[in-house]
């Protein structure tokens, strides 16, 4: 098992009551595993079906993308800059 930190912002940070949470996932984990671990945390039930995920500051495409320790993983709520 691997421990991964996930960065949270805006509505997600409010929902989890934190700007980052740590989840425990299998060693060969995917984005989907990270999301499943997040959903069982307090506030995790409010996540949408397919939240946008960024890995190392780039948007990740799809839940089957592999993640590993040392990567910067973030959940990105609908953006509203400008």
């Amino acid at each position, binding site marked *: 098992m691997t421990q991964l930190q996930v960065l949270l*912002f*805006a*509505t997600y940070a409010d929902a989890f009551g934190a700007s980052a949470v740590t989840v425990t996932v299998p060693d060969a984990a995917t984005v989907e595993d990270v999301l499943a671990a997040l959903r069982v945390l307090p506030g995790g039930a409010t996540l949408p079906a397919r939240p946008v995920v960024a890995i190392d500051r780039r948007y990740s495409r799809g839940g089957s993308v592999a993640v590993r320790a040392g990567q910067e993983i973030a959940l990105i709520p609908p953006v*509203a*800059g*400008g």
Partner: protein
Amino acid sequence: MIRVAIVAARIDPASLLAEVTSAGTGATTLFLGTVRDVNEGRPVTGIEYSAYTEMAHEELERIAQEAHARWDGVRIAVEHRVGVLTLQEVSVAIAVAHARRAPALDAQRYVIEQLKQRVPIWKCEHYLDGDRQWVDPSAHNVMALPDV
């Protein structure tokens, strides 16, 4: 020439204009986003912008690079502010210069449209009645905050 920044201090549009202008410049465009007094019919007193700062910077840089690749010779400066802004303060400034007007106009529009879609920045509106809400443009409305 490209420069992008996520800034906490007040944006100075004139300095961005000066920065992109060169001897070969024939057309310069500036886009400013400002905090307006009403949204969805509710009086707004201010907006708090928050960012995933490092990624916002990198995504802005990628957008500017894409524009630069598409419109050869454009000079671009972009600043997006974070923190609490009051009415009429500038949240974003995009300055673009080129020898001709079409690339300056096209690149300006590209940068603001892509920024709106991709740059991880969020805004929380503060209303006259003391309430606050995160804005969700993708839903064409605002998302009520959970009771935390």
